[in-house]
């Protein structure tokens, strides 16, 4: 397998070519961040700017989010770096009529699996990490007064560990080679702890997980599914959801948002990576993902043809739940 540094060089080359040939007006990728483990979404408009593009295990945003959050009215064609989950979200956006296939040029790349910075920080509680470098299968973590080697697979984001599609499902060009489809984790095990709990225990576990929420909405705003022009929490007439930090308001936001993502979520993990307080909101969405897979045999975003089960009506739906 190519290293992420080798992939990064190839992404830069492809971006420079596409921009100088005028095939696209912008390449959406990542640039190196100013703090450890936080590379950031970057928009290259010229071959010179393309030099700033990078690729690493610290690319935790879902870039497809920027296909819909770009200022309206721009008709330009963009290229986008997309690993498995991001390509699946692009498929989702096409199916939901948010973008068209010919608007995007997909630079497909196999996901190396992204690092969960909270997991790395948890290894060094209360310490300041100053630099993290990828070195083969390890990370070299440097901090104030320490330096340690950490095996990358022990600090992968959980959604990357349980990923079932690391390769892009659609692409115009492949950067580097395809990889194994999974990282070996079992996604059903993410939802399993919830399933063992009774309603009261579930509620308690939910409250515990979401107790630190500060309602910054970073989870929503980082999510390529959350493109509603007016989110239900921002509706004023009627105001569906209160604005306070009280449990009912916080819970309403998270539960409704999770349901809104049912049958659409690709488990990309952008929400958890964006959260400033480390909430594991995938505990909710993973259960919904499992239900959709088991009840409807559907995994979102895998191809352009299949119909999303919760978006279609069939006269012969059994509707057994009503009986």
């Amino acid at each position, binding site marked *: 397998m190519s290293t992420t540094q080798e992939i990064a060089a190839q992404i830069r080359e492809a971006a420079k070519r596409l921009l100088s040939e005028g095939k696209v007006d912008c390449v959406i990728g990542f640039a190196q*961040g*100013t*703090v450890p483990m*936080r*590379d*950031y*979404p*970057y*928009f290259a408009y010229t071959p010179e700017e393309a030099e700033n593009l990078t690729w690493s295990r610290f690319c935790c*945003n879902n870039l497809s*989010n*920027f296909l819909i*959050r770009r*200022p309206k009215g721009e008709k330009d064609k963009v290229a986008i770096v997309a690993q498995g989950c991001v390509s699946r979200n692009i498929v989702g956006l096409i199916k939901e009529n948010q973008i068209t296939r010919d608007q995007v040029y997909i630079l497909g790349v196999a996901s190396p699996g992204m690092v969960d910075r909270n997991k790395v*920080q*948890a290894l060094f*509680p*209360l310490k*300041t990490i*100053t630099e993290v470098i990828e070195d083969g299968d390890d990370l070299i973590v440097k901090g*104030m007064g320490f330096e340690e080697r950490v095996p990358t697979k022990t600090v992968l984001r959980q959604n990357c560990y349980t990923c079932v599609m690391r390769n892009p499902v659609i692409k115009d060009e492949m950067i580097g080679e395809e990889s194994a489809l999974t990282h070996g984790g079992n996604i059903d095990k993410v939802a399993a702890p919830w399933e063992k709990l009774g309603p009261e225990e579930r509620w308690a576990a939910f409250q515990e997980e979401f107790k630190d929420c*500060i*309602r*910054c*909405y*970073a989870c*929503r*705003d*980082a999510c390529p599914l959350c493109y509603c022009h007016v989110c239900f929490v*921002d509706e*004023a007439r009627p105001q569906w959801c*209160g*604005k*306070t*930090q*009280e449990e009912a308001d916080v819970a309403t936001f998270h539960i409704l948002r999770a349901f809104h993502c049912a049958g659409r979520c690709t488990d990309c993990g952008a929400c958890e*990576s*964006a959260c*400033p*307080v480390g909430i594991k909101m995938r505990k909710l969405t993973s259960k919904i993902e499992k239900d959709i897979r088991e009840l409807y045999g559907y995994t979102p975003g895998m191809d352009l043809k299949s119909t999303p089960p919760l978006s279609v009506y069939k006269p012969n739906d059994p509707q057994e739940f009503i009986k």
Partner: protein
Amino acid sequence: MADKILAKDKLGEFLGKLKKDRQVFGPQNVEGKAQWAPLEADETLLWEFANTHLSPKDFFFPQTECMMRFVNQASDEQGMIMQAEPELPQPRALVNIRPCDAKAMQVLDLIFVQDQMTNDFYWRDKREKTLLVGLACNDPCPTCFCTSMNCGPHSTTGLDALMVDLGDKLLLTTLTDKAQALAEGLPDASKADLAKAAELKKAAEKSIASNVGMDKVNARELMELYELPMWNRVHESCLNCGTCTYCCPTCHCFDIQDEVQGTIGRRVRNWDNCMSWLFTVHGTGHNPRGTKKDRVRQRFMHKFKYIPMKRGGEIGCVGCGRCVLLCPVNIDVRRLVNDMNA
């Protein structure tokens, strides 16, 4: 003002004195992060930490705060009856608050308590009843830039007392009348102690590697800054979430709502943020800050131009670096202000 020595084995007594008639809070290790929590056992108080994960502003400006309750019955001859919320029942102390956060509270005093008309009772009540005992930073982080923001790792602004860890003991400097009682019975600091503290201060200031320039930001006309071409790019990756605002010790925007059920209700003040389109949208549907660019520009112009212009050169940022660490798309305020200053 007095410079005293607090031996580390006398900390229990010192904290006991604080606790006698106050509720004491301090940074503690909560789930692996330094977080503010009530201090129950003295030994859980952190002495070696960068800064608390989130700022202490919510001690004075809670994210959700009930301002009053009301009853409005048509049949009641008195009409609507409004009932004030109780004041803070007990004085408090925040121990080991970092100098940047104390400075931030002083900046917010200038916003919440300006004159007779702008005199926020809710803020003032909690500020007046809270003692701030600071802990100087001897090892600032790479993301700290307090020295560029009218502040510093040993800054005393906004504090009632500052402690400097001298290794085997603490130097306690009382700064306000409120803190005088803390110094009682403690031995005076020697010249050598003061020299050591001065040395630590110098070393800490020197170790701050992030420098942010404000000279051109200050010199430039408002509209010149407002129209800088850099604004066309810095917003590109912004998600317009509220992370930067809510982790910031000086961001202070809020939204007031009346929550009414039948004839009873309450008025609630909640944190709000200029990153949200909803923050400025008018009843007509018009939004004076309709684009992401407008909103991102607002946040930084407010902190680095409007506040300095209106508040005698004070800056709406203390260089704590929380937003640098927590922004989901790494919009780095240091880089941004340097671009404004370029």
